[in-house]
Every structure is written in structure tokens, then in C-alpha cells.
């Protein structure tokens, strides 16, 4: 899967879970600090990525995913 496609689908998941406009989701945005994710939404984001990309995110590794680009890197990496 192309990185740009991953980015686009990640943005959609983030906007849906956090109930914000897709245009507000920037590459460097931190889920908590910039987009206001609370602890419940952080878990929903992980679940959303797993469902969208049919992958499994290890809990410990998921903790390091703090920004939108972290999420894209993680998902692209899981396809390799």
C-alpha cells in the first residue's frame, strides 16, 4: 500500500474517532496535545487503525505512537 493512501485513511480514522474535521488533522499533530484525544479515545484510535488496516498493534509499541505521522509509520512498517 502506498504511503499516501495510508496517510489519507489514517486521517479519516482520526477525524471520525476524535470527531474533528479531516482538514484539522495535520501530519505532525500529537493525538493528545494537538487533537485533544483523551485516554478512551486513544484506545479507540488504536482499535480504529487495526480495523481499517486489518493489522494488530502491540500495546507497548502503540504507546510510542503519539502523532499522526507515528501512526502512518507504524502502519506502513507493519506491511513490510
Amino acid at each position: 500500500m502506498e504511503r499516501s493512501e495510508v496517510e489519507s485513511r489514517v486521517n479519516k480514522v482520526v477525524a471520525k474517532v476524535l470527531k474533528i474535521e479531516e482538514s484539522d488533522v495535520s501530519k505532525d499533530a500529537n493525538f493528545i496535545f494537538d487533537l485533544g484525544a483523551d485516554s478512551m479515545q486513544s484506545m479507540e484510535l488504536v482499535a480504529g487503525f487495526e480495523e481499517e488496516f486489518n493489522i494488530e498493534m502491540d500495546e507497548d509499541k502503540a504507546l510510542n505512537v503519539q502523532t499522526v505521522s507515528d501512526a502512518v509509520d507504524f502502519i506502513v512498517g507493519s506491511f513490510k
Partner: protein
Amino acid sequence: MTEKKEIHLRNLEKLFYPDSVAIVGANKVQGTVPHDILKSILKADFNGVVYPVSPKEKFIAGIKTYKYVTDIEDPIDLAIIVFPASVCHMALEQCGQKGIKSAIIISAGFKEVGPHGLAKELQIKAIADKYDMSFIGPNCLGVINTDPRAKINASFARQMPEEGSIGFLSQSGALCTAVLDYAQAKHIGFSKFISFGNKTDISEIDLLYYLKDDPKTKIILMYLEEVSDGQALMKAARDVISESGKPILILKSGRTKEGAAAAASHTGSLAGSDEICDAAFKQAGIIRCSNMEEMFNIAKAFAYQPIPKSNKVAIITNAGGPGVLTTDAAIHDGLELASFSEDTTSILKKNLPKTANIKNPVDVIGDARIDRYNIALSAAFDDPGVAGVFVILTPQSMTDIDLIAREVAKVSSHYDKPVYTSFMGEADVQEGIEVLQRNKIPHYSQPEYMSKAFAAVYNFSLNHYNHVKPAKYADIHPEITSAILNNAVHKNSDYLTEETAQKVLAAYGLPVLDSYVANDAEQAVELAGKAGFPVVMKVLSDEIVHKYDMGGVVINIKDTNEAEKAYNSIIGNVKKLRPDAKIKGVLVRRMIPEGVEVILGVKRDSSFNTVVMFGLGGIFVEIFKDVSFRVAPIDKKTAESMINEIKSSALLKGARGSAIRDIPAIVDSIQRLSQLAVDHPQIKELDINPMIVLEEGNGCFIADAKIMVTLNKS
């Protein structure tokens, strides 16, 4: 004062009295910390402007929010950071950029969760240092200032406490909410209420200095789990007490025995961390409390009532039994029952029923109403020999409880003498207790608590906890001591031989006798003659610490025959029981005349550094454990207090017709030992046991000494 401490003091003023506050990480989810803190601030009617900062919300509780703290146009005095630990550094960085100097970091998930959290904690500390910011926390409940000039409840406690004069500091956040709840029920007010959490930046020391100069705080209470820097805490306490006269009460948890079990010396095994903490607090004038109730019992007395001018109290009761209980407790706590003047006695006799007891404790009898309490109270307060009044009430069918409570408040308000009360019972007396509490009359559930609180306040008023000024001895030779100790460290020797230990002590003017080393029986006989009979002989070996147990000591050797036998016996015993031990010879020394055996010791403590011990010595030291501790350096007054504190001090003062011992010589030895220990960190532990104290004017002599050396393990 260091530059950082000055920055903290400046920033703390803005932290407690902010004109504007940003809640960084606020949200709309009820029941969460970020939401409840905003609610607390609004509910307390904060005397300033609040700015919620939320990445997502446009408004919270009708207040406009900002995405980032840097988006706020107005200047901000205080940031309350409630973001999760993972992004706190980002929030703090922005606060620094915004020019905010004070912050409270509520979030948990730092050093208390392990190395990963510690790294985050160091990261936020570095950011604060970069911007000259000061912060309380992380991992805390927050801060409350009841002063009407601020009225800020920057915490997630359930309620804003009443305004009062108690400054409360706590390392535990959860305990804070329990304290607030307890205090609310008893109408106890606070000036400042601070949960300082992990104390990464602002510590309890900084807060003590702030409260020292806070005009709203009269008394400081603290709950502490660990003493990170005992010497700094002692200095701060002395500064607070001597400069402001404000008492400090500490509830310190963690009464562990760790360290003591592994100690090799008597001093080491007797000086557990808790005993040292007790001693250090006492030395610095800190009142240590064993539980929350005791802490507030004493705090109420300090906060609400005048300081008593003497220890003479009057007890007024409507029940004989509680009067006797209170009398017992008062005597036990060092108070005296005042002897009433003729005037007082005459008033009481004239106005109270014949069945009443008009002597102290005054029993106004079970059917007493407000009039009898009024007569007894007024007479007791008027008596010049009475420094304070204890009022006891038990609820009989005719007792007008709330009226008597009002009368106590009314009458006592006309006098500059303290009144404490104990309305005994639970349900019926509650209304009266409420009256007392609302009128700031200290009430105690048990009558004996009154005397404990009174004694604490009175004893505090007697002492002036100024800084220690230890004696500076000119007749000491630290260069000799350093050479010996450095050599031991170099040779990796854990213990000094007794001969070497004696040299170390002699270099600091401690009273040791000349001693000689014999390497065979013939030499032992010759040296015994030289030392002068009777003599004592002891084995010299690095491997043998407790020489008595190995048969390595023979005392009271009276002539040459006994000297030869003693030498052979010592060598034979030691070779049999410790064949591995290398014997360096046998020490021969004149026998010290009979006297009282005492012990002096030194131990190092991770919090308070150098600790000196004094006590009843000899072989019973660990059975009776009659010892006292102080943190070095020690001055004359402190050394004297160490001697007076032990239970058997009467033995030194000529009890039951025995000779008075040379106490000034002990005082001198304690001070010299303190200086030796402070000057030489190579000494890990030291025991002088026994030191024989002769009669007044004849000095004291060290009979045995053991010095353990701190080896460089690198």
C-alpha cells in the same frame, strides 16, 4: 540563599496569588481531573481570570477555550497542567515560551511508575530550569489558597476548606482529601493547602521558607513520606521557628528498621532510621506527631488559643472520674495543677454547692448548669496562678450542653489565657461541640488529649531553636586522624585495630589511656609493669570485632603472674575459636578505676548524614537501649540534652546517695566526637563502649573503642 531558591520564592508568590490562571489540558468530561479542577476554581469564586486550554473544545462551562496556551493574548501568572504525563513536557515548553513562571503539574505517571517516568520527570525539570519557571508536582492533588485576596482552589479536592491560619503541606495527594474532609467536619481552617507530590522542582523546603513569611500562616503542618535532605530540612525548620516563631508539626510515615539489621556496631544497630528522624526533628524544634488526630489536636491549640505563660492548669469538670483522668494525664505530660489563691477559693466556696470540690480539679457536680460553669471558669481565669483552663463536661439529663459551650466561648474571650475543652460522649454533646468548634475553642474527644496539646504548645514556647554553634577545639590534630583513616581506606581495612582507634580518638583530645602492644608473654609482663597494675589485656586482630565473645579480653590483672597467664589465655582462646584470625598482638593498658559505664557512638544516615549516640554503656547497652541521638554538629547545650534525655541519667547525677559523676567531661567528649565525625567522612561507624565516667572533677576514660571505615568501593 541559592539563586534557584530565590526564583522559587518569587514564583511561589504568583503561584499562590495569581491574577490569571491557565488550565492546560482542560476538558468537558465530568468526573475527570481536568474538568473537576476547572470546576473547583469556578466554585471557589477565584479572584482572577481563568483561561481553559483545550486542543479540541471551543468552550467549557461557558468559558472560551484556547487551543494552545500561547494563543492567549493576556499574560498568565499560573499554569495548571492536567495533560497526561506523555505530553506534559510539550505543555510546559509552551508555558515557558508564553513567559509563565509558575506551574502546578497535577498529572501522574512520572518517577513513581519507574525509569521511563523518571526520564520524563527529568525532562520537565530541565524545561522549567531553562525558562526560570517553578512548578509544584507532578503527581499531586494541587494547591489551595483560602486568602480572600486569591480564593483559589487549584485542586481536585471535593471542597474548598474554611479560611484559617494553618499551612498544610503533604507529599501524599490522597491523604490531603482525607485531611480536608476531617477538617471540614471540625471547622478547622487553612491558610494554604499544598500537595507537593514528587517535589521535582519545588520541595517541602522551599514551601517551608514561603510559609515562614506568609502573613496568613501561623502554624505549619506537614505529611512526609521520605526525608530527602535531612540537613536542609533541619536548617529550614530552625530558620522558620527562630525567625517567625511558627511551629512546625510533621506526621512522618515509614518507620522502618532497614539498615539497622545489617549494622556491625552497637550504634548502628540502635540507631534505626526512625530513631534518627525522631532525634533530628526534636533537635530542630519540629513537633513530630504519630497520627492525623494528634497533629490536629496540637494544631488547634496553636492556631486558636494564646500560648500559656506557665505549665499550671485549672481543671473544671462536672464528673469526678474524668477530672482524675485529666489530672493523671496532666502530671504525666509535665504540667502542674495550679494552687488556687485565697480569693479564688473563697469565690468558689461561696458560690458553689457544699458538695462541690473547690480545689483543683474543680468538680461543679453532675447537676451543674451554665451558672456553675460560669463561676468556676471566671474564678479560674482570674486567678494569677492559673495559666490555662481545661473544661470537661459529661452529658447528664439536666446539663445545658450548648449553653455551657457558648459560656465557655464567651468567658474565655475576655482573657489572654488558653482554654481547651472535652465534652465527653458522642451524640448528645455534638451540638455543644459544634458551638465550640465554630467559636475556635479547641475541643478534644478524650480529656487527656488536652494536656498533651497544652504540653506541646508550652514546651515549644520554652525552647528557642537557634542554629547550632559547636565548640571549636584548638587542641585537635586532624592531620594525624586523616593520615590513619586514609591509610586504612588505602589498605582496604574495614576496621581500625583498637590501638589505631585509640590514636584517632587521642588526636581529637578524647580521653584515652596510654597503651602498649605485646607480642609474647614475657613482653606482656614487662609492659604490664610499665603501664602500672592493675591492667587489662585485649587481643589485637582486624578480624575480631567483638573481643569479649572470643575470650580475647582479660581485666583486672593484678601482678606479673596473672599477666603471663592472661596473655597465654587470650592467645589460646582466640586461636581455638577463630583459627582464621590474624593476631597482631595483645594490647596492654592500665585498668581504669570503677565508674559509670556509658557509650558514645557515631553512625552515618542517608538523610541526616552524621548521627551521634550517647547512652548507658557496657554489656547491657543493647538490652536496655537507654540511648539518645542527635544529628552532628553538636554544641554544648545539645550534648547536655543528650545526657539528660536518657532514663538512667540519674545514675550520673548522684541518685540514691551515689557519687555525682563528671558530666562536663562527658559533654566535652560528645562535642569532640561530633567534630571528629564531621571532619572525617571516612569514619563509617564508631563505638566508644564503655567510656568510664569517674566522680565529679576526675574526668572519664575510654576503655574500648571500635572504628569502622568507609571503603572506597570503586
